[in-house]
């Protein structure tokens, strides 16, 4: 059954409708629908246990949905499973590479499994190692690799067959900031080459940095599906936090801020003020006005909305509270 159907480039990379997966009484995924255009990055955002991995597993042919359907580039995951598997690369949360083998051996074995000859598998393996900055450790046993190196190698493995769709399940969880930034650069590069990426994350800033579209999942349901800008707008973007040196000036300062930002000012502590700030340009106005009024500050910071605040805004309860509830 070769590909004779007319499929154009505008076809959706992922098209999922009403996915349901239950484990016992737990509806891990409860009616998730997704559509990801070819060549974009979709960020699936949610706390632990929201159903992110379960969703990915169904999209990547690892588990069968109890209800709903999935098409990958127009191919059905249930009836055209082997075709779908030729179009996807999956990097799961657990390192699926072999500790006992060297980096190159790992890549070559997966290359051979994808049907490349020994020579081609070696060439592709070496190219990927160079691409991921692992060339000088190519023949070293993986047991001496750091967490970041393993994660990169794991990603390299899923790129061997140059799949047009790549699933990344929490690609940066547990990585240090520098490695995290490297991973982000790699992901951006992939999309430039024409790949479509679906990544899950617990971090709003990661989804914001990378994704064209963010799908927020909670308790197995999609609670928001928007661009990063749209999502942040609904959450109230960032807020300004000021600490006044002299607590007596607090009320005065609050009045000035209210006047400029046209927003409600919260008094967090005796001398600490928090106000939502949709336009960062207003920051200079606030600071000059305070200086003109002779109010000295001991601290200024801009607070980015956290996943918790997104959840609070979208569902009315924090993700933390939910976890405790469960």
């Amino acid at each position, binding site marked *: 059954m070769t*590909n004779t159907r007319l499929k154009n480039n505008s076809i959706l990379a992922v098209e999922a409708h009403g996915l349901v997966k239950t484990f016992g009484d737990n509806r891990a995924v409860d009616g998730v629908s997704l559509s990801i255009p070819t060549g974009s990055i979709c960020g699936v955002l949610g706390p632990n246990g929201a159903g992110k991995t379960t969703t990915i597993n169904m999209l990547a042919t690892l588990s069968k949905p109890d209800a709903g359907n999935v098409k990958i580039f127009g191919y059905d995951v249930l009836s055209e499973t082997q075709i779908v598997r030729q179009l996807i*690369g999956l990097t799961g949360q657990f390192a699926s590479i072999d500790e*006992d083998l060297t980096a190159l051996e790992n890549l070559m074995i997966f290359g051979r499994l994808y049907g490349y000859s020994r020579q081609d598998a070696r060439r*592709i393996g070496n190219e990927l190692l160079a691409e991921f900055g692992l060339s000088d450790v190519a023949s070293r046993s993986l047991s001496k690799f750091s967490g970041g190196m393993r994660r990169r190698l794991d990603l390299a493995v899923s790129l061997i067959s140059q799949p047009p769709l790549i699933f990344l399940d929490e690609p940066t969880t547990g990585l240090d900031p520098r490695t995290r930034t490297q991973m982000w650069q790699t992901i951006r590069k992939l999309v430039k080459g024409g790949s479509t990426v679906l990544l899950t994350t617990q971090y709003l800033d990661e989804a914001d940095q990378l994704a064209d579209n963010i799908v927020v999942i909670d308790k197995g349901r999609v609670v928001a599906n928007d661009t990063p800008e749209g999502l942040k707008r609904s959450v109230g973007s960032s807020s300004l936090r000021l600490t006044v040196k002299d607590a007596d000036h607090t009320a005065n300062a609050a009045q000035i801020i209210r006047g400029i930002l046209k927003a409600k000012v919260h008094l967090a502590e005796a001398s600490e003020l928090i106000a939502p700030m949709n336009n960062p340009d207003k920051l200079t106005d606030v600071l000059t006005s305070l200086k003109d009024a002779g109010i000295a500050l001991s601290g200024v910071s801009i607070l980015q909305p956290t996943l918790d605040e997104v959840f609070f805004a979208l569902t009315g309860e924090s993700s933390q509270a939910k976890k405790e509830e469960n």
Partner: protein
Amino acid sequence: MPNTTILPANQRNLKNRVGVGRAIRNSGTLAYRALLKMFHNPEIFVDFVVLPVMFTLLFTFLFGGAIAGNISNYLPIVIPGVLLMSSFTNCTTAGSKLREDVDKGTTSRFKSMPIARIAPLAGSLTADLVRYVMGGITVFTTGYLLGYRPEAGISAVIFSILFVMFVAWCLSWVFAFISLCTKTISTASAIGVVVMFPLVFLSNAFVPAETMPGRLQYFVLHINPLSHVVTVVRQLLTYGTIGADFWFALSGTLALLLVFIPLTLIAYKRKA
């Protein structure tokens, strides 16, 4: 590669099935993987080189005098027994590598790839053939050093090793199945010991059945399938011939294989 352009999905030549040739190549690659892992981890050689030497020496010197009068008379009895014991204890652990892959997540990656479903199983179990062969060579070498000279010559020795290797490979599917059905690997290996120990010792592997009490003798000679395998090997090494026992053992293990390949595959799919 990230710096090259990805071929779009609609320009690819895609097939929705994995052919037999591909399945065999995939299994070969995964057998190669298992072998590489084995050779990168030489400490596991203790299992199939040191243990057979130890068992051969232990049984020969401990029981040789009591059972056969002297050591050289006991060697033709004990060498086939130890050959069988070492191969079969090796095959009880056949599923542990598979289980490791399942528990670590490697299996999930395999499952997301366009490879034959049976390849990870077949590859892992087939790589074990190396263990059985090395065990067999070790047993015969130790025997040779102790003065054992099988009447039927070297070709009988090679044939015996191949025969026991094949039986052990068929049996390893059963133990792979068990290891995929239990909650932890240690439970599976415990089951392996519990099943294997009585079968090996309540057979004619180390002691001639004629010396045993009636009911036990009946079990050893007529119920325990391992006795047939031992008898085949002894007959081969002594007379260089194969008899009814050979065909019985061969058809028995083949039947086992036909039942357990699909069962193990189902258990593997459920677990992964």
